[in-house]
């Protein structure tokens, strides 16, 4: 099969976006394999892989969400592992690495890095509010994925980083997460919460005071005290956090980073994909490649199957016709989505500027057919990777 240049040749960082259940994790792993086969030193950062996929990649089970390690916890979950496969035995120098995102360990490492003293780190890491942040502040897991993506990108061992985004309500959350976390640590409400504690006489906006009283009345003093303790402990680290978030954001915005949208060919998934593509275009980070996963296979003879007399009750033909009809309706949905994305991309050309050549990219569409049996091992992933 002759191959045109694909996203694995164009990008240094690939962000895979898609709704739940579209096969995002499997597809990201296959993209990384395609990268390794093409001679790149690829690392895939996966999030909560299915057991069989984790086994296929030889990576450990994720720690359960609420479970946290002690201070200075090890980051075994985050540490990439080298995986053997056909990319390193045919004279190529490609490598495949896989790592699993451990949001809590990543956050802990960030705190330790930015704390002025070990005791400040300890105070923040031990705070109850902090310990809940990864599960309660929306966008935190996404930000930790973006933070790891940056770290892997800076790591000399790799020249291609592929990230499978966490399952979130909106796939786009990863892109907005750096700004979101900055705003959170910077929220002026905290300034006012902390003002009396610091003994500052600075006038606090009356509406903000009202908001604080409101929160106090809504949730009670015990919970508000935790907030105050957290921000008291966090004091002084906010600037480092903000700067880091800006760096992460810069990487996500650069033309080294490409966005791959993975969709299933069903109306619900297509609706979500359309929404995601629109949000990406608005942020001037257009979809580079659309991967349509689990498309009903083309068994051949589809013209025949579609045109035959539908009253014909031969079971073999009835079967063939059902799949051909389904595939045709899937293709119609995909065409609509592809046209909308292409429209958004060409609209982006008019305001090209900071993003350099990125807004002029053409949309690549890759179709992956549904398999009768699920992908169970590395060979299956290698097989899929051929599509890229």
């Amino acid at each position, binding site marked *: 099969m002759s191959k045109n240049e694909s996203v694995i040749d164009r990008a240094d960082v690939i962000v895979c976006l898609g709704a739940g*259940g579209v096969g995002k994790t499997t597809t990201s792993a296959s993209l990384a394999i395609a990268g390794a086969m093409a001679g790149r030193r690829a690392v895939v950062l996966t999030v909560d892989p*299915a057991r069989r996929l984790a086994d296929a990649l030889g990576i450990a089970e994720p720690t359960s969400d609420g479970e946290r390690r002690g201070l200075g916890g090890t980051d075994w979950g985050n540490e990439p592992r080298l995986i053997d496969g056909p990319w390193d035995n045919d004279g190529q120098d490609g490598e495949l690495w896989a790592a699993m995102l451990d949001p809590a360990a990543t956050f802990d490492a960030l705190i330790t890095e930015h704390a002025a003293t070990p005791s400040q780190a300890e105070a923040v890491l031990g705070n109850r509010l902090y310990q809940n*942040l990864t599960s309660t502040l929306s966008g935190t897991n996404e930000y930790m994925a973006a933070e790891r993506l940056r770290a892997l990108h800076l790591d000399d061992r790799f020249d291609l980083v592929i990230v499978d985004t966490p399952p979130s*309500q909106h796939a786009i959350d990863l892109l907005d997460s750096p700004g979101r976390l900055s705003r959170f640590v910077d929220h002026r409400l905290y300034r006012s919460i902390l003002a009396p504690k610091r003994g500052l006489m600075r006038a606090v906006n009356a*509406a903000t005071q009202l*908001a604080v009283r409101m929160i106090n009345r809504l949730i*009670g003093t015990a919970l508000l005290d935790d907030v105050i303790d957290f921000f008291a402990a966090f004091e002084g680290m906010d600037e480092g956090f903000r700067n880091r978030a800006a760096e992460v954001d810069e990487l996500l915005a650069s033309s080294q980073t490409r966005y791959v949208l993975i969709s299933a060919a069903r*109306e619900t998934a297509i609706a979500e994909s359309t929404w995601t593509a629109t949000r990406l275009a608005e942020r001037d980070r257009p979809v580079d490649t659309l991967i349509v996963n689990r498309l009903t296979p083309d068994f051949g003879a589809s013209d025949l199957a579609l045109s035959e007399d539908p009253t014909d009750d031969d079971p*073999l033909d009835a079967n063939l016709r059902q799949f051909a009809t389904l595939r045709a309706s899937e293709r119609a949905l995909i065409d609509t989505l592809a046209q909308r994305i292409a429209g958004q991309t060409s609209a982006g050309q008019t305001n090209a500027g900071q993003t350099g050549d990125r807004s002029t990219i053409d949309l690549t569409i890759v179709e992956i057919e549904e398999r009768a049996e699920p992908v169970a091992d590395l060979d299956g992933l290698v097989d899929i990777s051929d599509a890229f």
Partner: protein
Amino acid sequence: MPAIPSGLVSAVDFLRSSRILIVAGKGGVGKTTVGATLGVASARSGLDTLLIELEGHSTLGRPFGIDDLPYEDVDLIEPGEGRLRGRRITPDEALVDYLSGHGLDRIGGRLAQTGTIDVVATAAPGIRDLLTLGKIRQIEATEDVDLIIVDAPAAGHAVTFLRSAAGLSEAGADGPVKEQADLVSQMLSDDARCQVVLVSLAEETPITEVIETAYSLEDDVGIALGPIVINGLMPSIDGLEAGLDALRSSRSKLNNARRAAANYRLTRRSSQAAEVERLDVELPLPRIDLPMIFRAGLDEASIDELTDVLLPQLEALGRATNDKTPS
């Protein structure tokens, strides 16, 4: 009450066995389709039904020709014997609603706009979810509806969502939030008021996840589990295997296509059957089976087709419910 087709009486018995059905499942399993189908089945059985969508830009309204459901409820199908309405609930709107209900409407919009809700949500984990559940409870308490069907967040999130009330109480919440949490906990733990209908595909990952979700809903949330819906089952075709055998080794282009398509269907059916069998062993719950629909789009015709398959199964469940009731 006007006459309802006799078979539907038992379907009504099932649909009335609790006031709220929360439909939950992993992303991509057809949770929204199942919610809409249950809604149509309920309306067809003569019940006044309300479908509630929680996630933004979900597609619950689509089969009924509505792209985005509004916060105020709208009719989804022509009202007849029964009725089917739909609406959306979001935490921000529910918060504004809640505050205005407590004479604090001016601050509500401000809190929602400035991101202050993030502060509250971080200090009090689950407060967004609690606001949403509180709104559902308020609808249950004040509105004259026979059945409320909620399209819940995706599976892992569903547990967090439903755990929010208990979690807030444990975290030491006080004041109005504590009161709200207690009311919601009471609602969730009463099986005459609330049940979860889990949805899955007959595939490895969804089945594994649905089993985990079921146990954690029972153990951590203490909510009653209704039947589990297996969606997207590949229907059988009579004579397909015999037809495949008769092809023998004929290698014409058409016969190759026929053979590949037949093998595909048979393989999918057997791997689905193996997953369903695993589910039955690990999660002994009544099961509703829904077929794969051979159209990619989600239209009213698909929902009608599924409703025709669903209703007889609801009738069977209704009869089983009646048999269990002591006379």
